[in-house]
């Protein structure tokens, strides 16, 4: 009987982290499901879901050698209920401007108040510029024009530019 575990690995990047982690999981008969990895200001950052029969404590023990080298590793059980993708229309929220506190919280709060969920998010701090790109799923009944106006007004108050554009894909 397998169950789902969420594993996060953070820390100083070096060649072979992914090969090491997946080697341990494969050795336990685990099946790597969804995962997302990037470098955050040069630091390795990976979140993954693995279906495996072993308990979280066993997986954690087998990854202990990575923690010993300074990586931060967490292994947590996920609830058994089936997670489903949100139903709604897909939008892309793009924000950029001078960095200041409160950009992400101020704009994502408006999305949440409209009943929307964020399904993918990237934020980056460049030289003098802050960037946010979010995939947003909005309920069918959302007044998108009104939400766009609220986002634009909030963005103006924050001194940034924000646009909400359709992200629907074309079936070919």
């Amino acid at each position, binding site marked *: 009987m397998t169950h789902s575990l969420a594993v996060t690995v953070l820390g100083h990047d070096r060649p072979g982290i992914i090969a090491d982690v997946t080697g341990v999981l494969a050795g336990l008969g685990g099946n790597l499901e969804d995962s*997302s990895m990037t470098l955050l200001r040069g630091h390795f950052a990976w979140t993954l879901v693995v279906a495996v029969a072993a308990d979280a404590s066993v997986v954690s023990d087998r990854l202990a050698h990575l923690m010993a080298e300074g990586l931060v590793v967490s292994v947590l059980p996920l609830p058994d209920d089936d997670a489903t993708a*949100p139903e709604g229309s897909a939008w892309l929220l793009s924000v950029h401007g001078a960095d200041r506190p409160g950009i992400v919280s101020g704009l994502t709060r408006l999305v949440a108040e409209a009943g929307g969920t964020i399904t*993918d998010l990237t934020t980056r701090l460049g030289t003098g510029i802050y960037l946010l790109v979010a995939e947003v799923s909005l309920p069918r009944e959302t007044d998108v024009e009104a939400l766009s106006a609220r986002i634009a007004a909030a963005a103006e108050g924050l001194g940034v530019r924000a646009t909400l554009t359709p992200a*629907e*894909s074309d079936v070919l």
Partner: protein
Amino acid sequence: MPLLDGRIVMPPLPEGRVLPVITAPADVLSTACVEVDPAAPDVVQLAADLIVTQRVSPGCVGLAANQVGIGWRVFSLDVTHHPKARTTHGEYVLVNARIESSSRNEKSREGCMSVPDFTGDVKRASRIVVRGFLPVTGEEVVLEADAFEARALQHELDHLDGFVFLDRVAGAHAVYPRQTYL
């Protein structure tokens, strides 16, 4: 050149059958299709089947033969009513088609009936010239396509070369779970 008011004039086809669409992973989707005789009765029947299957599939604007399990270099297309289309050539089937030239890359998000779980951002040329042949008569067609029709043509010709859009995505974070649109 069998064109009337910019639309391809298709020869009469037999009655088509709705065929099931194959989903990835499947060898037939990863294998290059072979060229066939446009006038062969089986090819003509396939042309009719592709058109009918495409018509009954919601949102479908094109279908390659290997998407219905047949490894022949044949596809159907119709982007006439798509909002992103500029120039359109109507509803047609081409046999043994190839891209002659392409220019002006643009990125856009694609989905595919054969990859129902995902969508992805793919960069494709927005102007292309395609040379192919009509079923039944084997008449040669040279199409100058732009915008959405150019994208759709490249998507279908990719299928015929054994590629799906997942082979072309623009980056590691350019693939998304397909949402249920209400």
